[in-house]
């Protein structure tokens, strides 16, 4: 029962978010700013995580596929499959839910408790749309790019660890990476990413927007934003995987 009211409130908020903007030029500018603050600012953390996970994945694959019957290039193949299908789109999105989600909820929550949202409303601006819409669009544009970067860097990390540990040669790794490549895997990953981007920004926007009280509640909203968008990412990951791959 307790989930029904927030869900209804969330859907009503989304209706306001997607109302026609007062001034498209300003919204365009806001989207560019958000691409910068939500996307470009996340590049660093995405890069670091991707390289390390790619490296670890390759080493683990190498230890697990320890049978003379399985060709060594399978290591590269399995690394690529895990990176593209699951690690980059889902795990990196979860990390982004933590970083971007808390950023959005605390920014909008602070605006709420300091009456900045009321000020927008009084001016005749539609605050949900002005505040949340550019973030949703920006994330849906920039997250797929982040995820592509993450894939490339994770595969690079795999190659690097293979090289450094001597578990497999460059050419074997590359052979595995290219083996039975399916373009659809990338499409699947990007579709997931776009859906996750929407979930992260809209859910965090929702929790920020309905903050009430003071600084304490802003912190609480931002925790709720991260927890709820993470759970929704996991749930939608299951649904989308079933729909797209089954």
């Amino acid at each position, binding site marked *: 029962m307790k989930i029904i009211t927030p869900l209804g409130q969330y859907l009503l908020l989304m209706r306001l978010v997607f109302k026609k903007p*007062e001034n498209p030029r300003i919204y365009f500018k806001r989207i560019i700013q958000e691409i910068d603050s939500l996307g470009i600012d996340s590049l660093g953390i995405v890069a670091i995580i991707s390289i390390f996970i790619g490296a670890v994945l390759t080493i683990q694959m190498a230890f697990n596929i320890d049978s003379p019957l399985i060709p060594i290039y399978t290591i590269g193949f399995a690394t690529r499959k895990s990176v593209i299908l699951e690690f980059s789109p889902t795990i990196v999105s979860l990390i982004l839910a933590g970083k971007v989600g808390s950023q959005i909820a605390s920014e909008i929550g602070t605006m709420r408790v300091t009456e900045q949202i009321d000020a927008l*409303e009084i001016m005749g601006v539609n605050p949900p749309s002005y505040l949340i819409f550019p973030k949703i669009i920006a994330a849906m544009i920039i997250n797929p790019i982040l995820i592509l970067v993450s894939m490339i860097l994770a595969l690079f990390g795999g190659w690097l660890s293979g090289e450094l540990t001597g578990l497999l040669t460059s050419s074997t790794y590359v052979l595995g990476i290219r083996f039975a490549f399916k373009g659809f895997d990338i499409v699947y990953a990007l579709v997931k990413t776009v859906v996750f981007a929407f979930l992260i920004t809209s859910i965090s926007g929702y929790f920020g927007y309905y903050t009430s009280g003071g600084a304490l509640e802003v912190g609480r909203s931002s925790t709720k934003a991260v927890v709820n968008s993470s759970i929704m990412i996991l749930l939608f990951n299951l649904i989308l995987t079933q729909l797209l791959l089954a």
Partner: protein
Amino acid sequence: MIEAIHVYKEFNGKTVLNDISFVFEQGKTNLIIGQSGSGKTVLMKCLVGLFPVDSGQVVFNGRVFSEISYGEKKKIRQEIGMLFQGGALFDSLSVEENVMFPLSMFTKQTLEENRERANFCLKRVNLENVNKLYPSEISGGMKKRVAIARAISLNPKYLFCDEPNSGLDPTTSIVIDNLISEITQEYQITTIVNTHDMNSVIEIGDKIAFIYKGQLWWQGDKHDILHTDNKEINDFVYATELTRRLKGK
């Protein structure tokens, strides 16, 4: 002109506004006065529609606010300038950008024209050379003045100021009071000011509503208020030694 008609408002069973009816006139500085916690801010927020009223109506020049469409509400709001008690400046924008915000949102003017207008408004509130600073980098009184500049940037038809001179020194206070009173007459604005500053009351109170225990306890103007028998209003007006001395009590 804005009319409040039998406005009631309660929070969690506690009545804050109890049957308030008052006409806020155009071209006049209408004051809402009363003790801290008497419901001035709540009344102002009910007038602009930030709080829905529990019963009663708020009427903007004949248009009942609760009965008009979302689009019409937005239209009216673009004619409202409001100063919040806490300023409510956008902290991601600089001082100048804050004042320019309504202009760039709702006018087709160029950036230069907007900047010029913003600087004009900032000058009127005695603020210069702070354009590039952010709200976190200026003092409380300066924030308040930036917020006033932002509220008047679009030449509003309705101006709401929640305690425009709390936190200001007496000299700046007078500048702000005079500014509010001047533009009200000059542009025939319907201005509503919340205050508990007696000096403002006597300077600019064209029409005064005294709120006491959630009720409209007394109304009049800056002349009447000094010569009323109403006990509560006298307690309010002559609360300080200074005002008592002036009256010779």
